[in-house]
């Protein structure tokens, strides 16, 4: 099967091809989901090393159970559910050690520490700089969300999953998902509002 053809296949078709010996089908699946899944894990765990381990583990489980995937749900949902459950288990194990340090590297590819990313005292005149700061503030605010609201927000906003799919992944009702999403947006809204005021003062 040609690579271009593979990239147009659905997730379920790719998995089926892989179980029939098409290794590159798995390569396409990995390319398709490794960044969104890694982003989700990073935002949930705030630790690059652990997130990479969890990402690897999620794909290994997909490989191990590829034959048993029956297609009752979408592969995307299934993969996210595996990643989410791995993440929750890991967070439970390490909960007591979760203390974000202002001087620790964030591990998200940005070498600046959280301290560096906080607004400096000097005036920021560049709108792009303000935009970057706003994004940083948003990520900081997301980290402060309760776990259940954060995962719903990330699955919806970063990964564009529908409420129904999120409900399936998180094993709660669709209305609960909507409520959590709303609460998450309201919290982020207030966090960003404070920052907007600060940014306005700098201008």
């Amino acid at each position, binding site marked *: 099967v040609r690579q271009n053809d593979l990239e147009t296949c659905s997730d379920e078709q790719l998995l089926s091809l*892989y179980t029939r*010996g098409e*290794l590159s089908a*798995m*390569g396409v699946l*990995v*390319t398709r989901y*490794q*960044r*969104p899944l*890694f*982003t989700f894990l*990073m935002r949930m765990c705030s630790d690059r*090393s652990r*997130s*990479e*381990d969890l*990402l*690897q*583990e999620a*794909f*290994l489980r997909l*490989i*191990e159970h*590829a034959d048993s995937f029956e297609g009752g749900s979408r592969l995307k949902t299934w993969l996210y559910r595996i990643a989410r459950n791995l993440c929750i288990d890991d967070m439970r*194990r*390490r909960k*007591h*050690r979760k203390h974000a340090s202002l001087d620790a590297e964030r591990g*998200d*590819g940005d070498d600046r520490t959280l301290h560096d990313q906080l607004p400096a005292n000097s005036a920021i005149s560049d709108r792009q700089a303000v*935009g970057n700061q*706003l*994004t940083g503030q*948003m*990520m900081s605010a*997301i980290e402060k969300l309760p776990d259940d609201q954060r995962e719903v*927000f990330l699955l*919806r*906003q*970063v990964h564009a999953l*529908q*409420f129904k799919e999120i409900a399936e992944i998180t094993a709660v009702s669709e209305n609960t998902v*909507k409520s959590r*999403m*709303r609460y998450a*947006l309201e919290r*982020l*809204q207030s966090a*960003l509002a404070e920052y907007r005021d600060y940014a306005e003062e700098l201008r």
Partner: protein
Amino acid sequence: MSCESCRDLLIELVCDELPADTAAEARAHALTCERCGPELAKLEGTMQVASKLPLLAPSPEVERRIMQAARAAIAGKAKLPARERSHSESGLASWFARISAWAMSPQVAMASVLILVVGIGLYALPIGQAPETTALRATEDESEGAAAEPAAPSAMGAATPVPEADELQEQRRDRGTSAGELLGTTPAARPRAEESAKAAPVGRLAKPKAAKGGSYSLDDRLDGYGSDKGDSKPAVAERAASNAAPERKEYQEKAPADSASGAGRAGGFAPAPPASPAAAAPMPSQAPRETQGTEPAGAPPGASAQSEGEASEASKDSTQQLGQLAQGIAASQRGDYGQAEKLLVPVAKSASGSERTQANLWLARSYRAQGDCARAVPYYRTLTQSLSVSRDVLEEAADCFTRTGNEPQASKLRARAQQPTQQKSPD
């Protein structure tokens, strides 16, 4: 569309989860609504910022390992390659991380605190809760002391590094009075001590103590108020100081070779300090905490501040003190409390050992008999610090503590009085 309906749909509207016609209807309402419009704008603004969140990429090594596992699975290998850790969290680092996680867990912290509390509690337990054990230990210590001291007095005292004892002696020398002189163990002082021992006429003070080859039976020790004959344990330092005098004198008669270096020991035959329990030379095994704790809590007013001049005076006039003590006790017994106080207070201030104890006891009784428990309490407090204090004294003390409103202390003393090991009244 009503405001309420619109507000319920706002979250689905900003997430593009509404059917097109419903979404259009909701937006039309929001445009004209003062409440829903701003709220929709805020939510969309937040979603817009959130949409700019970048996707993060894992290291290429992760993809390599995943594909390696996928290849192995296709190749029909029954076992997938071991899950490599992507980072250095392996081997020693991984082990250390696990240990750290365990050590920093709340459960370990709570257990540590619990152990600490129990440890401190056990350490702070008053020795008085196990009087029999203490008494038995005292017997052993005394026996050892009796055997060792005459044979090698210098080794037990001068040659034995006892910093606290040496320091005390040094201070006394600085004041112009040697420890041996104060303790009646120097040649100049010994005759006076012997004379005092022979002249002790009062009550049980006159009772001969049979020195059985330098040692005493437990029965001998338990006979009377001063039944503890020189317990070397720290908590009974005061008892050693207050009660060892008669035995010391007798022992000195039998073993005159005992040297002043014995001041470094609080054993049954070690010379007791002249007046203050706090002056008892701390033993190597003595904890300073307990040595210090005896006096401030229990010394009667004025007794602890006895000057060296008074001590010297006491040493010189011990015979006179014994006479005063006997007259004071007699006065108290016949109800002449004023006379008793006049006679006993000087003895309580300047005497040592059992003379001082007896003076304290009868002063306490005199005050109590007059209904002046406030003045009696300090003396009872000193008396009850002794482990083998008689049941009668304990009950008297408890009564006084009750009258002065210190019910907890009274309860403790009554509980002690119920213990079977408490002795009968010394008188």
